[in-house]
């Protein structure tokens, strides 16, 4: 437990120290790289809420990541072109206020997760994996054919959305926003994990029958978890789109779902900080291996295969040991 605590603290400090040093030495690229890791961490924490705590192996979380991205893209696009989103029955205008965009991204992806979850959770096991994958693909093809918002080419936003009192185009200031959000999400998930709901959810993962016997409905627990999970990943999607000032259907592709899953697995399933470690490791690998070879996915594949076959607890399992794992 102590090792895990130290590792958590170390990670959070490392994620601040690197950008701070990069800021002093004037290396904005490094700050952006860490920002990327922070945003991926949030996406991974979202998936981990369903996967780690609820045991729901969703292979379609790119859908929520992408919906968050498109929520940002569409709102900012309308604000940028001064065209209303909807004129009838009520006038709806675009916005470039980050906070409003976050709220909308969270609501949209939560609603999508509620709908997809309500259908998918009728099934279990391998059916659930395939169905979440299929719903992800459905939204992916939908965005490709949605020509009003760029179709396959996606949407570009010229200026990053605004946050009161900050210049979001400055890498370090945007990093701070993302980092604070990460802290909020980590704290929220940590509290949720220890809450009656979180305990019941983990109990349902371990033994559905007993949970039912004490009067709880596993379906409702899972659906709530899936919805929260989608909402968190949607927030990460909005931030990611803002980081790149670009959103495209590739955010919803099944490879993205696989990558979000990799964040969770590399770090360690079912630990609040697992995805943070996993996302940081992923960005590190992406950067170092990507510089090494054009075909870096081969090495990523080999590492992932090694982790799955031989190091099942991920990075956390290796360092902090398995005894504190939640299974």
């Amino acid at each position, binding site marked *: 437990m102590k090792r895990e605590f130290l590792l958590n603290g170390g990670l959070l400090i490392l994620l601040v120290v690197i950008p701070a040093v990069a800021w002093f030495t004037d290396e904005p690229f490094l700050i952006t790289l860490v920002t990327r890791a922070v945003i991926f961490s949030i996406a991974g924490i979202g998936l981990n809420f369903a*996967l780690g705590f609820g045991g729901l*192996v969703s*292979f379609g979380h790119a859908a929520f990541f992408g919906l968050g991205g498109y929520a940002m893209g569409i709102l900012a696009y309308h604000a940028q072109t001064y065209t209303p989103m909807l004129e009838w029955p009520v006038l709806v205008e675009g916005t470039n206020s980050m906070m409003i965009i976050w709220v909308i991204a969270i609501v949209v992806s939560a609603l999508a997760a509620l709908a997809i979850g309500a*259908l998918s959770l*009728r*099934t279990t*096991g*391998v*059916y659930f*994996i*395939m*169905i979440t*994958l*299929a*719903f992800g*693909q*459905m939204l992916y*093809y*939908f965005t*490709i*054919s*949605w*020509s*009003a918002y760029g179709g396959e080419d996606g949407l570009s936003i010229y200026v990053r959305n605004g946050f009161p009192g900050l210049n979001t185009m400055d890498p370090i200031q945007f990093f701070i926003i993302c980092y604070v959000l990460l802290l909020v999400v980590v704290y929220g998930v940590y509290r949720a994990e220890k809450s009656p709901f979180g305990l019941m959810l983990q109990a349902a993962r371990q033994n559905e029958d007993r949970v039912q016997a004490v009067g709880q409905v596993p379906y409702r627990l899972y659906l709530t978890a899936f919805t929260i999970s989608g909402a968190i990943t949607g927030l990460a999607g909005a931030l990611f789109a803002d980081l790149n000032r670009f959103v495209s259907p590739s955010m919803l592709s*099944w490879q993205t779902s*696989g990558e979000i*899953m*990799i964040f969770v*697995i590399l770090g360690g*399933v079912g630990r609040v900080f697992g995805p943070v470690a996993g996302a940081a490791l992923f960005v590190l690998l992406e950067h170092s291996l990507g510089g090494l070879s054009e*075909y*870096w*996915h*081969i090495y*990523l*594949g*080999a590492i*992932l*295969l090694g982790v*799955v*076959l031989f190091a*099942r607890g991920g990075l956390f399992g290796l360092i902090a040991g398995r005894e504190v794992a939640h299974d």
Partner: protein
Amino acid sequence: MSWILLVEQTLNGLQFGVMLFLMAAGLTLIFGVMGLINLVHGSLYMIGAFAAAAVAAATGSFLLALIASLAAAAAAGVVVETTVIRRLYDRDHLDQVLATFALILIFSEGTRWVFGSFPLFLDPPDYLSGSVSLPFGIEYSRYRLSLIVVGLAVAAGLFWMIAKTRIGIRIRAGENDREMIGALGIDISSLYTLVFALGAALAGLAGALIGAIQSVQVGMGEPVLILAFVVIVIGGIGSIKGALIGAILVGLTDTLGGFLLPKLFALFLSPSAATSVGSSLASMSIYILMAGVLLVRPKGLFGGV
């Protein structure tokens, strides 16, 4: 005549469905017998297509290309099964998904490394090019018609094999009770390798046959893999009959949806709006079909067991 177009589109849908069956049959067998969710199936499809394109370019023979696709995919299947997949049978589905996802990354980048990023081309042979005249003045591509015939023949052969041969009996026994057939003196691990290689060969064949219509390129396997997942979810995992019916349903829905939905919306929307709404909805139609089937039967059409 619009109905001639409709018949053509129906045949296209049938052709697509039959090819999807070749993919889905392997997936559903592998899941039914070994309990494995196998994402690497799309890579085997790609390997079949690349092997066929390479052999066709070297020899000029389409038949040799098809044999090469079967052999290469089966060989890749055996190698993957004995080195990695075998370790996954006792693991949970999450581990299986991740390990086979890792294999996709390795296979895709490996193929890109060997063959480059540019698509290869595989042409149908001369004796199958052009079109044939069907009754009522319908002209249809000879190659696509051959695909329907080949696919249905493979399906019939597969049904016969599962129902009548000794191998088929073992496969069905393996689906029912793995420990029991082991106790009866059947070498489980070679049966598993055989089933995996069989599924791989079917996927490779599908890749080569489709590769002659579309281009042969890295990443061609995964969209088909995901559709094959939809097929077996609709049909019921583990059921070959479900895979056939699901595949044809999905093939027809996809093709006819893309053809009919824009026309349907044109009745009450402006032409441009009808095209965009229709094509958006058409691209989602098979998933809507899947959601509908699941609402009524969460285990798929033939997945009662």
